């Protein structure tokens, strides 16, 4: 299939996923009533469910899923490592420490903003720490140093989380663990605004770097001889992709697999040209996470399962099929 055709298909899938996510849940709403509610008609309860609960949640899934897949593709190119994902540089660890601290100290009760702000602050602290260490070790910010620093800082944050959880009571531990497995249940229009504010401009910046990322993926020395300002591309792309991951983790917790599996799946289907890979990863991640959230809400309805469980249960088999197909190719 051509890249344009595939892009169109994915865009249609995103819209379809959003419509399904708006229609289905603990209460199923028929398409006609969904349409009415979207245009501000129909009864107020239905309108509330759709406009204040399901639609912001679906759009948040689009933004977070797209953002994570996009950031994952960028990290894989910059680190020249197919196993890289958006959290690899300790971002999830930092965010989790912030979130768990907020939960354990009870500040979450004070304001609905406390948890995302704490998680975002933790993610930024992790980014600052990892890039600070890498930059002090080497002016050029060696990606191997970055990777090691990220893994080590991540391990340190894990220990911090273990310590906080060890001295917390059972309900706190449960809340914290559920947060760490990711959930879009906190979605509202404010969260959508925050995610959009970070994700959409970042997506444009990263798309502008697509061709440079093609070169970065074959090595920084070669990239620079081909005319890339390697340091600038690296700083911009790492910085922007990290912010996307941080904003995602702040509003939705740690959602695994999307940032790893979606870019790979897209790569297997359309190749490694980032001019196609980045936008298609965004669409793929958006469709994937929106569908995963629908499953997370409905499979054991009325209770929800962590979205990270769904992304793994659904994503891993799809990925293995794609992998097998590409090897047979």
């Amino acid at each position, binding site marked *: 299939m051509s890249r344009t055709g595939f892009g169109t298909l994915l865009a249609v899938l995103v819209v379809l996923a959003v419509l399904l996510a708006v229609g289905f849940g603990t209460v199923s709403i028929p398409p006609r009533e969904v349409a009415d509610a979207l245009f501000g008609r129909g009864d107020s309860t239905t309108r509330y469910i759709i406009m204040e609960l399901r639609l912001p949640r679906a759009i948040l899934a689009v933004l977070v899923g797209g953002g994570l897949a996009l950031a994952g593709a960028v990290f894989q*190119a910059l680190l020249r490592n197919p196993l890289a994902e958006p959290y690899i540089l300790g971002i999830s660890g930092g965010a989790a420490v912030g979130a768990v601290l907020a939960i354990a100290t009870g500040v979450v009760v004070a304001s609905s903003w406390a948890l995302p702000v704490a998680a975002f602050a933790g993610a930024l602290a992790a980014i600052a720490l990892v890039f600070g260490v890498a930059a002090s070790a080497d002016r050029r910010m060696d990606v191997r140093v970055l990777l090691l620093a990220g893994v080590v800082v991540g391990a340190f944050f894990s220990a911090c989380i273990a310590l906080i959880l060890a001295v917390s009571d059972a309900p706190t531990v449960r809340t914290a663990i559920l947060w760490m497995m990711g959930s879009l249940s906190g979605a509202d229009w404010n969260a959508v605004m925050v995610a959009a504010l970070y994700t959409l401009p970042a997506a444009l910046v990263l798309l502008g770097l697509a*061709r440079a990322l093609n070169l970065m993926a074959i090595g920084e*020395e070669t990239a620079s001889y*081909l*005319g890339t300002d390697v340091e600038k591309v690296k700083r911009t792309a790492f910085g922007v992709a990290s912010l996307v991951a941080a904003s995602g983790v702040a509003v939705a917790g740690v959602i695994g697999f999307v940032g790893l599996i979606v870019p790979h799946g897209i790569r297997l289907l359309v190749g490694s040209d980032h001019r196609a890979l980045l936008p298609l990863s965004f669409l793929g991640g958006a469709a994937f996470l929106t569908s995963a959230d629908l499953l997370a809400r409905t499979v054991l309805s009325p209770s929800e399962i962590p979205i990270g469980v769904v992304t793994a249960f659904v994503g891993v088999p799809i990925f293995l099929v794609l992998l097998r197909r590409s090897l047979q190719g």
Partner: protein
Amino acid sequence: MRFATQGLTVAYRDAARPALDDVTMDVPAGLLYAVLGPNGSGKSTLMRALLGFLQLRAGEVRIGGLPVQSWTRRGLARRVGAVTQFEEMPFPLTVRELVAMGRYPHLGPMRSEGPADRAAISRALEECDVTALSNRPANELSGGELQRVRIARALAQEPDALVLDEPTASLDIRHEMAIFQLLHHSADRGRTVLLVTHNLNFAARFADRILLLDQGRVAMEGVPGEVLRKEIVEDVYGWPVKVRHDDLTGALQVTPLSRPEPGPGNR
């Protein structure tokens, strides 16, 4: 495109001696210029310094008359194509995609390939005899094929100069010969070709001038007949050789002799 250095000195952190020590050289346009020297003599470092990739401790590098620091990466890539020793390929790319990357400095981040770009890519593929491989995944090529593809990418830049670090390492005679002829041809048409190699005999046969490095210093610089003299080669490489003219090509031929007494590498 002229390359010149004056007192070029480069030192790596924690190294006992500088990797390059007071290297002065001048490579006028249109020359095939070979850089020779034993392992660790600073050949690759010289190449990187010439391309502005290293911090200099002292001295200067000038490309086309301008200090190398004053070139932007993009500006330099429009004029100079480089082929490094190693390159990573963590994700699959086709041969054409890889060669098309040579157009980056002409396109920048946004603009898409036009007819002129496609023509340059086709010419480069053709010149390196890899057109037939265009749609093959580059990670499935043989060593010789991949090297030709990487040279094609440098040619797709439409540069005035080529800088290559051991482009024929690990290639068989056919592919090595093909690449040397290609470079020779390229220099004939006015490109400056700067080449790091271990192949003394090909350097003797194809290079206009040779720079022989020894522990970061210039041991000798000149036409092949001046540099590839028995006493110089033996001194720099620490191995007995015989130097004579080849019957067929008339070029100098350096043959390493076997050494009677036990020594390093002599079992």
